[in-house]
């Protein structure tokens, strides 16, 4: 059991998300899916075990039992019993010890995986927290001071010493170039407008979406019907300030969506931080898939290596 001494700005349980968009229910799940997979692999969990997603400022946790943890994602400061401890590797926390996760100067989110995985409310096959509708995770809300988080049972294993090469992590640079694909709604002039300059990330950045600061002339089509959305869509409301959709966004929308961020860059989209800048780079489906295959291959190799190390008891 883990006691929450300080919840942090917005800490929620997230796993790989759910697949019931046909019922109007958002996907949810870790915004930086790479961070979730890496953190789970380090502690020896299944790739989709529920972990704690922390945002900009982390929680302070007192462990009542021994645990194995790993933090991956944005470079948050982390202290165990007051001493700095490294990210991107598995750590043992003894019963009675306190883990204090501070802030990050780059990026937005990180995932704290705990061996066994966090227990939480399962809704439509996922423990992910949906804050808007208030379900999943910890009663559908962020963790609060005084909460007692519980872990699912796990087999006793040794803690592996491997640490991840920084190149495996999602980029959290303050300027991001996101690869995008044009949709049928991308008229040439609009496409040129969207791709020729950088945009600033506004303070409106949450798990539903990231709003950009500059506006462009939005095509207003009152006859546009409501269509299914996908995560990574760039949506253009009438005020012309683009919104990039994240995992908690609504499943359908009526605004034009001229671009979709390539799947390989969705984790980086999740790390966009208010004040940072973002530029869109057009790619085609072949390029997007090739990049995804490459990234997936590296991630898969890492997961398999860590699994092998766990099996060796290294």
């Amino acid at each position: 059991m883990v006691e929450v001494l300080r919840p942090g700005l917005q800490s929620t349980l997230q796993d790989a998300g759910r697949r019931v968009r046909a019922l109007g229910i958002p996907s949810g799940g870790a915004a930086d899916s790479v961070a979730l997979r890496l953190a789970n692999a380090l502690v020896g969990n299944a790739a989709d075990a529920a972990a704690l997603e922390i945002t900009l400022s982390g929680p302070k946790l007192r462990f009542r039992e021994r645990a194995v943890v790993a933090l991956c994602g944005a470079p948050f400061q982390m202290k165990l019993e007051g001493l700095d401890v490294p990210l991107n590797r598995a750590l043992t926390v003894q019963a009675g010890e306190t883990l204090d996760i501070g802030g990050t100067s780059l990026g937005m989110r990180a995932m704290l995986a705990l061996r066994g995985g966090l227990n939480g409310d399962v809704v439509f096959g996922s423990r992910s927290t949906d804050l808007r509708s208030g379900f999943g995770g910890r009663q559908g809300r962020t963790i609060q001071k005084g909460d007692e988080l519980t872990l699912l049972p796990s087999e006793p294993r040794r803690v592996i010493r491997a640490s991840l090469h920084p190149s495996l992590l999602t980029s959290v640079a303050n300027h991001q170039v996101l690869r995008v694909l044009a949709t049928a709604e991308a008229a040439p002039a609009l496409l040129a407008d969207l791709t020729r300059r950088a945009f600033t990330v506004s303070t409106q950045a949450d798990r539903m979406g990231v709003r950009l600061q500059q506006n462009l002339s939005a095509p207003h089509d009152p006859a546009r019907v409501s269509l299914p959305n996908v995560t990574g869509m760039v949506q253009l409301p009438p005020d012309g300030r683009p919104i990039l959709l994240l995992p908690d966004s609504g499943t359908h929308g009526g605004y034009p969506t001229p671009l979709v961020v390539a799947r390989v860059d969705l984790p980086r989209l999740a790390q966009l931080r208010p004040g940072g800048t973002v530029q869109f780079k057009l790619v085609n489906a072949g390029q997007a898939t090739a990049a995804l295959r490459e990234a997936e291959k590296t991630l898969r190799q890492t997961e398999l290596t860590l699994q092998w190390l766990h099996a060796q008891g290294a």
Partner: protein
Amino acid sequence: MTGNAVTGDTGASDAGTSGTVAGDVAGFAPLGDSALMVSTPLARELLLSCQAAPLSGVLEAVPALNVVTLLFSPLETTATELQDAVQARLAALSPLPVGEGRALHLPVRFGGPDLGWCADFTGQSVDRFVDELCSLPLTVAFLGYTPGFAFLTGLPAHLQMPRLRAPRERVPAGSVALGGPWAGVYPTETPGGWRIVGSTDIKLFDLARADPVWWHPGDGVRFSRD
């Protein structure tokens, strides 16, 4: 900063009619590298077919009016392969009978902030306008936007309301609203651009129920005065 920032948009900000499809030919439009939008009059049949026997590489099928969007893994299939598979599937489907859903009654307390405006817009008294709304056989076309939100069809042209010029930032849960060709009920507090004519206490999404979503595509719905 985080927590309540982005409005996103509602399906509830839409107006307009269907008609993405000419005749009975399917249209295909990729959405990024891992989704394919299929426009077809057989959308309902395609959705049911995909739910019963998923197409290879497809993770989810999401409906809209005359549309099914297939979310797929680009590591397992491509938009082109998928398009061929969908064509083959569509060729084997025939239209299912409509009107086989349940008959649901939705008690509404009429008196929303836009009720008077809507009645004026139709040139009727509020009473007459409400009577007419309650007489309509509405149908759940599809679910989407937020858990429990349904797009209801069946509004005659003169009851179709233009959306608000600027969406409200907060529409209270339970608000019954009209927007373009649609009627709908906001299950949770969200932003919204439709005209609010009343409210209901029916919980449209309740995880305590065996079936959390109150209505399903194909169900008939009638409003009544609460």
